[in-house]
């Protein structure tokens, strides 16, 4: 094993938490039963790394095997790094009948045509998702395995999720994807997050349109503080209405864990108490970012508790409805990635 391969393995070992090590190595299948037994998982990570390095030398493993291991780990733990969603546009006639082997071959050959030194690994995961690992090189240097790009694509959908892609690499990847998946274009879906599962759920739900139009009963809150009877009676109907509106806008049950949403506002300032600003022609430019450990739950709670007025504004309900978390809002007409908005006074 050469130096760079060793470094790759060392870095990978630092990344994998000890408790996942055994299962991951097991899935990898490159260690014999004996070798796996010989690893003492109670030792320090450093000691384990040394042991594993020795075993890999013994088995004469190469870079491609180590990248296999990395891929297995990432597929099982996809909720790290930043994932960005893209959408393939304008399918060709045969887009829906593209099957796995065809896609694999086409993707590899297209990418290799575009860039000479590139290392591509494609793996089909159990749930119809195709995982692609790309290590990029250029005309003069070999692929850099330390900064691979990961791509996830479900063949029957137009959605693609990508992590660790630089702006130079983006057009190359886009081209290869579009050609091999048999579409005409690819665009930014304006959705990003740390948890692949969350953004995928968000988009796929939209795709399958499983939004209830009327939520049957609001979820009972278990730890409700018993308060004044009069207040309860008075507030019963408005509270129920708010809850209804909240669930209609965001859905019920567990919500996908989005971390943030960004709105770029370029609308005019309108406030009847401020004549100067209202008469102004230019838009009032600002950027609003919402952040939370679970953004959709926070927003739903804002609606049900009255912090947000109901009915929920389309700006917020667009997040689950359109599966986006980046919006550019202007006063006039829809732009390429903007949403039509009629400002109300």
């Amino acid at each position, binding site marked *: 094993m050469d130096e760079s391969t060793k470094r790759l393995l060392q870095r990978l070992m630092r990344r994998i938490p000890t408790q996942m090590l055994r299962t991951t190595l097991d899935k990898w299948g490159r260690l014999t039963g004996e070798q796996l037994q010989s690893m003492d998982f109670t030792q320090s990570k450093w000691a384990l790394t040394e042991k594993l390095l020795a075993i890999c030398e013994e088995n004469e493993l190469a870079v491609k095997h180590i990248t296999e291991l990395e891929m297995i780990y990432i597929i099982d733990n996809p909720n790290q790094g930043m994932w960005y969603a893209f959408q393939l546009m304008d399918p060709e006639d045969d887009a829906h009948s593209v099957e796995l082997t065809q896609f694999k071959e086409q993707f590899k050959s297209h990418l290799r045509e575009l860039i000479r030194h590139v290392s591509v690994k494609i793996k089909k995961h159990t749930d119809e998702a195709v995982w692609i690992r790309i290590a990029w090189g250029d005309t003069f240097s070999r692929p850099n395995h330390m900064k691979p790009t990961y791509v996830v694509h479900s063949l029957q959908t137009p959605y693609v999720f990508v992590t660790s892609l630089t702006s130079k690499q983006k057009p190359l990847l886009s081209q290869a994807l579009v050609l091999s998946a048999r579409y005409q274009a690819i665009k930014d879906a304006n959705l990003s997050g740390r948890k692949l599962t969350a953004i995928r759920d968000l988009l796929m739900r939209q795709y399958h349109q499983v939004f209830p139009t009327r939520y049957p009963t609001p979820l009972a809150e278990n730890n409700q503080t018993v308060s004044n009877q009069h207040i309860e009676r008075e507030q019963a109907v408005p509270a129920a209405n708010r809850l209804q509106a909240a669930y209609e806008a965001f859905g019920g049950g567990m919500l996908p864990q989005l971390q943030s949403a960004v*709105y770029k*506002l370029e*609308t005019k*300032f*309108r*406030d009847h108490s*401020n*004549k*100067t*600003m209202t008469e*102004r022609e*230019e838009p*009032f*430019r*600002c*950027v*609003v*970012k*919402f*952040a*939370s*450990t*679970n*953004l959709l*739950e*926070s*927003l739903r*709670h*804002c609606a049900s*508790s009255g*912090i*947000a*007025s109901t009915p*929920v*504004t389309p*700006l*917020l309900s667009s997040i689950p409805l359109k599966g986006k978390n980046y919006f550019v*809002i202007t006063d006039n007409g829809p732009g390429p990635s903007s949403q039509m*908005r009629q*400002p*109300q*006074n």
Partner: protein
Amino acid sequence: MEKHHNSVTRTPLNSVVVQRRSKSKSYRLSYRSCLGAASRLGLTPALTARRLNTSRRAPKPHNITEKVDAEQLTLLVKTEWQLSYVTPLYQFRHTQLKSYSRQLSAFIAAEKQQGMAVEVEGPQKTFRVSFSLVQGLTESDDDAETVLVQIYSKPLFARQDEPQKPVWSGWLTCINGNPEYLGSLPKDFICLPLFGSSGAEGLTTLVKSWFQQSFDCCFGPLEISHTSLQWLMALWTNCHNEYSIQHLKMIWTLPAVPPLQVTYTVNSEDAWELWGSVRKGNRGGGGGGGGGEEAEEESSIDIEEVRRFMQGLQSHFYRHFRLDLSAGSLNQVSTALGSAKYSGRIKISNSRYMITTLTLLTECALLKMPI
């Protein structure tokens, strides 16, 4: 005759005259009692007593680099400081700074031996303390000179000429302190009510203990209240035509489950225009009041204008998101001139408008002091 344009609230205030149990056995007026004539009539204390000034002078760029040593200024700007208030110091002498440096060094060494929680990276570390005077960082004649304290870590066998970065810094200052209050202090007391520190928490505690022991004073945490944060927003935005603030950023926290953080960043030009539109007399937006004669009239900013500014920003937000920001709390305000957090952390990024910011903070410190 009032030296400053500050107008002061006239609600009846606590008219407590406090006798300080101190060595000088003299009477000293409480800060609050200085704030209104009504107090001298001995009216019953009102519930909402303490208020910040409701209007203050608009910030002008102070050519502070002419007054203060540039090197010292660089130490103060671009660092985030944690603020506390300090009660007046008894028999603190600006002429004894060298002696204080030695005393504090010895104090830290002694406490370390006792096993106090100071982060040390090895048994051989000692600390070198330096007290210095930041001359020129004052505004009125009553203000005491700012004192800067720095603690360097000194490895035992270091060469003399090795340049060292301080591991802890702190300062005490009083900018535009209320003249009545300062005048009412007995002779031996120096008032430096605003304390800022940056560095290990353990060292901060030690420094505070030493001050408390040596000068019979008291430290306490200083939060930057919602009103003060609004003031800073307005004061900083007001500077935009002279020095670009680049953006006006506010960070709010809404009490949802889980908590929702909202970062609302406004384009600097638009913030400036909005600010101009809420000024009294509505002097248009943008480059409106540039003339010399107008400048004098504009020199005072009222709390109402500040409130209207905030109101405008909140209502623009509400129109889009139907989320009421006032249901949550404002945690942080920042522009290119600096950033301020509710928790009492302040960063001044540019020395030009430093005096105004420190004036506001000095006022907050004086108000928060218990006596």
